[in-house]
């Protein structure tokens, strides 16, 4: 009895929505190209500087084309150790920062998805109280609570540890609220269907909620990874040892007030290396990231 019903072709987002006139498209491209140039040029210039010797950099003007010291500079920074930060290599810094950024991103996602799950799908006493409690922490960024947090970290002996770098930054009201908003759009019937199908709370979370949230998770991961990667104030406070620095802190330390004291070629290499992982994350996750922002799969 089921006649094979015809399906409409899968519609994509490949249609232009507005501005089909050629003048409009031209103008749009000009503006976009200008924007890209303005943003990209300093980065290119940094790259150029990172391939010259210190002497060349210190003797203006800096050439506009890359020099011949690419391999020397990069291997010196990555594996040799930088003098001004106690001979720690940039590779160590990259590892540190990766651990911290991943820890913050993954930790924030786990904590906030679980809190949102509890708040949306469970009826427990004080549910709204906890919701508002999370909500008001939005008004208390790290900077505001930095002294007590620092005291706690000292008391717990977490100075110069990865835990000390990660844990205080891990709770996120924003991510919790985002997940909450998403969970609220999940139809009640779906939850009930799962209950009838014998899925307990954990199964429901694992088999249904998590897969449905994956685009949201991916988008959040990108945002939070970059947030973690670029943290400045907290890592500055909570690390004393050079080998526990994150790359952003080390970069700051590498620059001396006296120009001649600064190994500018290594600073430039470190800058390039510092922006590489976030770019990599964005590029690799781009497909998911864009989907998470524009599309809900329901």
């Amino acid at each position, binding site marked *: 009895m089921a006649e094979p019903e015809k399906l409409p072709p899968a519609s994509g987002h490949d249609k232009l929505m507005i501005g089909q006139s050629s003048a409009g498209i031209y103008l749009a491209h000009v503006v976009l190209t200008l924007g890209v140039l303005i943003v990209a040029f300093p980065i290119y210039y940094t790259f150029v500087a990172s391939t010259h010797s210190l002497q060349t950099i210190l003797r203006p003007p800096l050439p506009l084309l890359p020099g011949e010291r690419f391999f020397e500079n990069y291997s010196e920074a990555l594996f040799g150790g930088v003098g001004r930060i106690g001979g720690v290599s940039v590779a160590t810094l990259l590892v540190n920062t990766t651990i911290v950024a991943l820890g913050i991103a993954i930790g924030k996602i786990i904590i906030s998805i679980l809190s949102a799950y509890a708040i949306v799908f469970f009826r427990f006493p004080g549910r709204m109280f906890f919701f508002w409690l999370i909500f008001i922490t939005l008004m208390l960024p790290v900077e505001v609570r930095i002294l007590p947090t620092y005291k706690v970290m000292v008391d717990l002996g977490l100075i110069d540890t990865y835990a000390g770098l990660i844990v205080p930054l891990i709770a996120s009201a924003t991510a919790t609220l985002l997940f909450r908003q998403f969970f609220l759009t999940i139809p009640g019937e*779906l939850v009930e269907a799962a209950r009838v199908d014998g899925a307990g709370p954990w199964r429901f979370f694992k*088999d249904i909620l998590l897969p449905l949230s994956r685009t949201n998770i991916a988008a959040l991961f990108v945002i939070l990874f970059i947030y973690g990667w670029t943290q400045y104030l907290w890592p500055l406070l909570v690390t004393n040892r050079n080998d526990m620095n994150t790359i952003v802190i080390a970069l700051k330390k590498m620059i001396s007030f006296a120009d001649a004291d600064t190994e500018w070629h290594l600073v430039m290499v470190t800058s390039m290396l510092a922006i590489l992982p976030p770019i990599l994350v964005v590029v690799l996750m781009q497909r998911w990231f864009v989907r998470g922002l524009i599309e809900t799969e329901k």
Partner: protein
Amino acid sequence: MATVDLKDVCKVYAGGVEAVKGVSIAIPDKALCVLVGPSGCGKSTLLRMIAGLETISAGSCAIDGKVVNTIGPTERDIAMVFQNYALYPHMKVYDNMAYGLRNRGTPKDEIDARVRSTAKTLELEHLLERRPRELSGGQRQRVAMGRAIVRNPKVFLFDEPLSNLDAKLRGQMRVEIKNLQRSLGVTSVYVTHDQLEAMTLADILVVMNAGLVEQSGSPLDIYEKPASTFVASFIGAPPMNLLPLRSGHLEGAVTLPPVPASASTLGFRPEDCEIRTEGADAVADGALRLLVEVEGVEPVGAESFVYCRVGGERMVVRVPGRVEIKPGDQLRTYARQEKLHFFGSDGKRV
């Protein structure tokens, strides 16, 4: 295979809304029970209490002789088909159907065999690898059915499963659901507000109003002997004509058969009323004869509805084929005595 017994079931929602106010229904094994009633009368609430998705405030619900009030939906061994199908959007059709079985720890090859045979019954085999959003509404509906059937539960629960389909497909699926239910022999409760669906599907029809059962019984019994004016006007399309009696007298009546003393409303079905243009006196004795004025005619093909006015009240006459009647015509109509229904001032049948 199971019976479902509801005894004085009540539901009071947290806000104090009394959605169901003491409902008792006994559904025998393999029967299809249809709950019908206007919007907000508590049909879904009752169904969800049977499912275990809603707590029972008072009374008891027994499945297969065992009271299940405190048991969760999983252990009740029921399957539910939702109005919006509630398919898992990220799972293929196959996994949608297999999910419930997997959660119950059914062995893999048995799951596979069951899913495939159910898919075959429902002609879903070619869709097993698709995701719900790649299906048409009708196909989704079938998958939702499949998900219920594959588990081979004690009871099927349907909450307006066809209301999102177009009229033609709805008619087709109605027949199919009935056949499936019969061949599988699974006790079922089916909620709808479509009285045609209710009439055609039900073994037992339960008409609900404002959280109470107005009448329950076989669909034809209810159609022929509605217990109240509410049931009379809810079941049947167009609904039964109801004309008020004033101290045993009906305005516009030429002859009126004997009226029970306590009756305050007289009713007759549109199809039980005939139009006589001439020779009206040849009609059997004791029939109700009315002199009516035509207000409008609605030909729908095989039959026509003639909307009339009698003594300030509106009524409908259903005549086969097409008729040569215009608005403003004066007509004589009659209805046999045995086709008349009388209701008291409380709306109950007398």
